């Protein structure tokens, strides 16, 4: 059930929030209710996958208890932790990576691998695995005391605002909130606004940009004998994807933070206008920060021993980034994307890039060029498509430069491109700060205008959602 579906907005969310606030008298009941709602949310797309979730919750809860008990008896819990991590990673591998691997092997050796490739990954399996590993490691390290209430643990794993995207949690950050949190009206109202902003990013910007990017990348994938994709069109497609990926991921973050806030949870910020970064290092301190923080905490730190050599640090950095790449998908292009980022970060550290006297504009262009190059790796399905897209991009495939289609796309979607670019920068919060910094007439106007603008955006979201799913002949098959 996507957050940007009418079913979620019109039925699931109002019922979940309504009952949640009716149960104000007991946080336990509230948590049980949120857990039940999360199970329904999880099972909605494929009911049978709830079994995976329940098994994962039960197994990891017990493994956590075993770790704590062994530590209480002063017996090493490391073998249990290792076994638990392996168990979760094997599950992740089976569901997420076995299928593309089997497909590759099958096509190479002409084998029928349908039984394996037809395995569908359960919803949010990557995020769930990361949350579980954080829980196991945090209690093993005794960074935080385990909450032995199974409902609270199950809610940590399966809370619906975090299942489709948003920040990656670390157990230590949220364990206390699950059992002891206060939901104030201010939290709720901020959460509502954040949720609507996230929806707006996804429905009004990311979906449209995604549509354009999909067409261009698909055309590029089949280009050659069937069709030719001029360079200008690939540029437009790449810009569209650059805007799509930012507004999708930051939109999901806004939704997760907003929904969490509505139910009293506070999560860390995840995005801070990364496309205005002045270096790749700066970019990664603004883009999906919870991801990097998680990998630093649970991958890089354990690999780094005291007095590690530079070579070892560089090796660990590459290893971590390759894993980050593989987290997003099982293809070679994701691996290359990880390697590219590691190489850029190492390059910046070696050259002390931040201290070089380079103008801000040049720095921003450098960041955008390399990040967009990275997005090509991220978006293309395989190395062949990558080579075709890059060839098209620089006009090396005899594909020409000018494209009527590219100009047509800009003509039809200029307003979305413009909104996508403007809202990738801190222009809106700066304008808001300007309006409210001095307590004058503008501030009062802002107080009136803001709810109206948000209401208009919500209406616009509803209109676009209805248009995308509208079936005027739901009652009658007229074709």
């Amino acid at each position, binding site marked *: *059930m996507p957050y940007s579906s*009418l*079913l979620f907005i*019109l*039925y699931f*969310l109002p019922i979940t929030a*309504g009952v949640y606030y009716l149960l104000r008298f007991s946080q336990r009941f509230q948590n049980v209710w949120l857990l039940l709602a999360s199970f329904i949310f999880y099972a*909605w797309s*494929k*009911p049978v996958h709830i079994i995976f979730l329940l098994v994962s919750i039960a197994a990891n809860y017990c493994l956590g208890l075993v770790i704590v008990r062994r530590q209480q008896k002063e017996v090493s819990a490391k073998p249990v932790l290792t076994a638990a991590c392996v168990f979760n990673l094997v599950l992740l591998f089976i569901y997420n990576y076995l299928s593309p691997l089997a497909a590759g092997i099958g096509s190479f050796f002409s084998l029928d691998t349908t039984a394996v490739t037809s395995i569908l990954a359960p919803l949010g399996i990557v995020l769930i695995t990361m949350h579980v590993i954080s829980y196991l490691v945090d209690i093993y390290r005794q960074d935080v005391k385990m909450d032995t209430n199974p409902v609270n643990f199950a809610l940590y794993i399966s809370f619906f605002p975090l299942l489709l995207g948003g920040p990656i949690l670390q157990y230590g950050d949220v364990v206390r909130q699950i059992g002891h949190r206060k939901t104030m*009206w*201010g939290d*709720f*109202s901020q959460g*509502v*606004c954040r949720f*609507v902003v996230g929806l707006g990013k996804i429905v009004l910007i990311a*979906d*449209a940009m995604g*549509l354009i990017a999909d*067409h261009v990348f*698909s*055309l590029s994938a*089949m280009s050659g004998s*069937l*069709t030719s994709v001029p360079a200008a069109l690939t540029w437009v497609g790449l810009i569209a994807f650059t805007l799509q990926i930012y507004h999708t991921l930051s939109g999901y973050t806004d939704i997760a933070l907003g929904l969490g806030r509505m139910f009293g949870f506070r999560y860390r910020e995840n995005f801070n206008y990364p496309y205005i970064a002045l270096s790749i290092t700066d970019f990664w301190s603004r883009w999906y920060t919870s991801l990097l923080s998680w990998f630093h905490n649970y991958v890089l730190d354990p690999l780094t021993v005291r007095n590690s050599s530079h070579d070892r640090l560089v090796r660990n950095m590459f290893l971590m980034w390759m894993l980050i790449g593989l987290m997003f998908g099982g293809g070679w292009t994701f691996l290359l994307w990880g390697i590219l980022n590691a190489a850029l970060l190492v390059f910046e550290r070696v050259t002390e890039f931040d201290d070089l006297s380079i103008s801000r504009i040049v720095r921003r262009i450098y960041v955008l060029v390399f990040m967009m190059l990275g997005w090509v790796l991220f978006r293309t399905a395989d190395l062949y498509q990558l080579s075709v897209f890059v060839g098209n991009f620089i006009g090396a495939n005899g594909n020409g430069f000018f494209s*009527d*289609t590219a*100009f*047509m796309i800009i003509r*039809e979607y200029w307003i979305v491109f413009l909104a996508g670019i403007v809202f990738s920068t801190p222009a809106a919060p700066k304008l*808001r700060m300007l309006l*409210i910094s001095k307590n004058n007439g503008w501030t*009062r106007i*802002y*107080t*009136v205008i*803001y*709810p109206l603008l*948000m*209401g208009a955006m*919500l209406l616009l979201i*509803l*209109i*676009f*959602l*209805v*248009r*995308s*799913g*509208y*079936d*005027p*002949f*739901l*009652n*009658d*098959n*007229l*074709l």
Partner: protein
Amino acid sequence: MNFTRRAQSFFAILFIVMSAIFSILNFITRLPLFQSKLRQLPEGSGLNNVVGMVDYVANSSILGEEKLIYTHSQLEVLFRKKESGGFEIIKGNNGELGYGNFYPILTGHTEEYALRVSRFRDYESSRGCPLIFINAIDLYDRENSSYAADLPINDQNAISDAMLFYLQSYDVDYLDSRKVLKDSALQPEAYRYNTDIHWTVEASFQVFAALIEKLSLGYDLELDPDYFYRNPDNYSKTAYLQSYAGILGQRSGTPFSGWDDFLFIEPDFQTRFTFEYRKDNIDYTVTGDFNEALINHSYLDNGNLYASYLSGQTPWKRIYNELSQDGPRLLFVCDTFAMPLISFLAPMASEIHVICPSADRTLDLEEYVMAFDFDFVFVEYYPGNITEDRFHFFTE
């Protein structure tokens, strides 16, 4: 900061009040639709099917959707857009709508479908029943449609060409409506509605007349020796001016699509039929003259004028001609393009069976044709419907 919080509070209150009212009203008004769709699910449907149905209905139909679509359409007009819904629909220079398509049209699948039609023909021929394939027109007319060159035009004529080529190679007879209309007295702008995928009722009448001619010349089947049924003067015509928005118009919204004129044609001579059809697993029977039996007045009333002929697409329907039992017994395997055409044929036939394979995949066409002796079989599709779900018959 207080001002920010106050502004957020105002919006949160607005959000709660509006979403609560809207959600409750929406649920109450959609409940009958949920119940009706639930009843339509086959017996023993699993949880997956129920969830899928609830999901589909909840996301496809909400309170005030026509107004929201209308507003969306107005926004598209405001921004002078020539496409709607992410290139789902594109607009031509003369207001005609078409589907958008960025990709090359592939025709490889047509050979298999032509082969299936030929197997169907072979089976019926062995029982002395000929078969003709009728190719309906595409939305895009290579000679007359006019779109801005940069729009992603969906020209499916290549599918028609390939299908007819393979049918010819399998020696299956066909009627190409593109040629029929080109040779007719109709102006090209009257071939199809701007807002709909269908050909106009007038165009359908031209194809009906050409079919009668073909049966007479090619098969010695004289259905209209006196040129009575093909004479347009024997039909009454009702014009619905600027009041028809077809499939494309309703999806994109009328500010974007505009309106079409609709010419409703019905016989001006005596007719009497019994019309049976199955819809949503319920069987209906209507008896009366052409207007009473074959025209669904609820569609006329709600603006779905084209679907008023034979109630649009239903999985199965049968027309008994109460005034003549001497005519042939016909079978149509078709999409909705054929509905006016079949209606015009009905006074000349004793009985017409109509099957729309895509509307009911469980209906076994091979078993069905074994149970009846037909005098003639017609397979009719528009090129966009030359797809697997329309040709799941005689697969081996």
